[in-house]
């Protein structure tokens, strides 16, 4: 193992085509050590393909991929030793017991017999699998199976863990457990997870990569992405008083702030107004002060946070726009 490179995964200009169709089209990104990165994208975006290439299971058509300082294409043995991988749909042998399976996998991952027993106990504890350790995997519920897959991925304490949709098909409670489990790996291991469940990525990941049609359409921290792609914030005010007055002072506040919605007074005489503000600056305090100065009674003022969902939709829409319409003549040459 090299002396801990600060970049755990480096991907540059990765391309993978299947029979002339590009599944991954010129993706570049890098992941610092100890970070949790989420791959986000609609079905068929190229998430799984990218992950398979990172593990060395698939060969790339072109481009360069480095994991833990080893190039994937030429040093498959080292890559296999430093990556823990849980594929899509988490395939497990149906006819083995949980502890047997982990023992077999541990031996394949070159953990010595002496260390393997305590290590299996440890991962069973971490993944809350102690109760089912002697059960046959085929008889386990989906949540347990998923956790067996995660236990297997972290078994040999690899520096890089790649999990393809680790929470798919789980109930909210199980998602919470899996999310905590992944979060507990932060700092110790570099983790890449893929998902199309947005809040989950937002809560667990330090960095998000939005992939669509084989391209990275956006990357950064969830907060930075919101800023970059939406570039605006929204406020809601509930107040009682003259609506025209509000409109007037907002028009004079700044050109960046606009009133987008104003409702009629409800039974108690309160209206709610929605405002959008371009740029990063926070207008909350100013708005509150102005309302009070104009004699409006304010019941609530809130800044609405755009969710990652909005970011995701904005990013994928942007990439669709970039892809459509096709350049003329492209169809002929293909």
């Amino acid at each position, binding site marked *: 193992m090299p002396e801990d490179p600060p970049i755990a995964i480096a991907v540059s200009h990765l391309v993978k085509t299947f029979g002339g169709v590009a599944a991954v089209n010129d993706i570049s990104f890098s992941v610092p050590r100890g970070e949790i990165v989420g791959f986000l994208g609609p079905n068929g975006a190229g998430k799984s393909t990218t992950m*398979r290439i990172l593990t*060395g299971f698939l*060969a790339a058509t072109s481009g360069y991929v480095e994991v833990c300082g080893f190039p994937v294409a030429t040093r498959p*043995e080292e890559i296999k030793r430093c990556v823990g*991988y849980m594929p899509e749909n988490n395939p497990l*042998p149906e*006819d083995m017991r949980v502890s047997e399976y982990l023992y077999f996998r541990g*031996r394949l991952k070159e953990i010595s017999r002496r260390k393997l027993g305590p290590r299996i106990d440890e991962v069973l504890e971490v993944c809350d699998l102690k109760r089912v350790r002697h059960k046959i995997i085929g008889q386990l519920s989906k949540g347990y199976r998923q956790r067996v897959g995660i236990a*297997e991925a972290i078994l040999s304490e690899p520096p890089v863990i790649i999990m393809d949709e680790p929470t798919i098909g789980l109930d909210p409670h199980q998602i919470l457990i899996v999310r905590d489990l992944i979060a507990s790996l932060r700092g110790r291991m570099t983790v890449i997870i893929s998902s199309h469940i947005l809040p989950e990525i937002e809560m667990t990941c330090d960095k998000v990569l939005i992939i669509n049609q084989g391209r990275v359409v956006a990357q950064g921290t969830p907060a930075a992405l919101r800023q970059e792609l939406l570039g605006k914030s929204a406020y809601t005010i509930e107040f009682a008083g003259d609506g025209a007055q509000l409109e007037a002072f907002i028009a004079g506040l700044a050109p960046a702030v606009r009133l987008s919605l104003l409702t009629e007074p409800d039974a108690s005489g309160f209206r709610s107004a929605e405002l959008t503000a371009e740029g990063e600056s926070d207008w909350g305090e100013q708005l509150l002060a102005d309302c009070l100065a104009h004699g409006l009674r304010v019941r609530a003022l809130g800044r609405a946070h755009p969710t990652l969902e909005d970011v995701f939709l904005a990013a994928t829409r942007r990439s669709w726009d970039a892809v459509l319409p096709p350049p003329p003549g492209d169809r002929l040459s293909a």
Partner: protein
Amino acid sequence: MKHFLTILSHEIRMLLVSPSTYLAAALFLALMGYEFTRILETYSEAPQEVSPASGFFYLFWLPVLFMVPLLTMKCLAEERRSGTIETLLTTPVTTTEVVLGKYGAAYLLYVGLWGLTGGFFWILRKFAGGNQLIDPGPLEGGYLFIAVSGLLFVAIGVFASSLARSQAVAGILGFTMLFALIFGSASLADAGWLRTDALHPIRTAVEYGQVFQHYEDFTRGVVDLRQLLFYFSGTTLALIFSILSVEARMLHH
């Protein structure tokens, strides 16, 4: 080859805990026991030219055609169908170790099942009250033939399993390939159109691969190095093709 033993012992373990193994073994022994009894019945009616052992091993093709595809069809096809091949090959094991480990387990089971038929001869010896019915030459030659030819037959089964995603397809494919090897070469050798001089090299090759001829030589006590070479090289080739097939599927996944 660090992981070969891990995979081999795991595969053997999985075979030993699986009820289908015992079912297959019981059916195999029932079938072979039935044939053995029939052979003994013909012996009790009239004296025969050959010993019971060579008559018994002459039926080697029956378990080969049915048992070998059944034993091997699961090994790689099932891994691919369930997707566990992906987790298996992303651990520090090579495709070669995986294929050899699975092949080794299937071969040991095949030889083990045949080994159990040794009990028939033991019973015969015990109840016939002596060795007059048992000719050690054909017996040893027969078992040697089973062990050596089994190398190739099981390798062909593993190769068939590496080609398909479904177990049933792998089984049918294995059956067809084994049938072609055992009976196809025999019927080709009789074909008139092969007798022309231009096709002489092909004819030589076909004669070289006569499995029934090999069987006869082995039970007569003739162990020909060319025949051993035929099985060893065929086995190596089938296993190399299996490894390539698994890796090619990864490339074009």
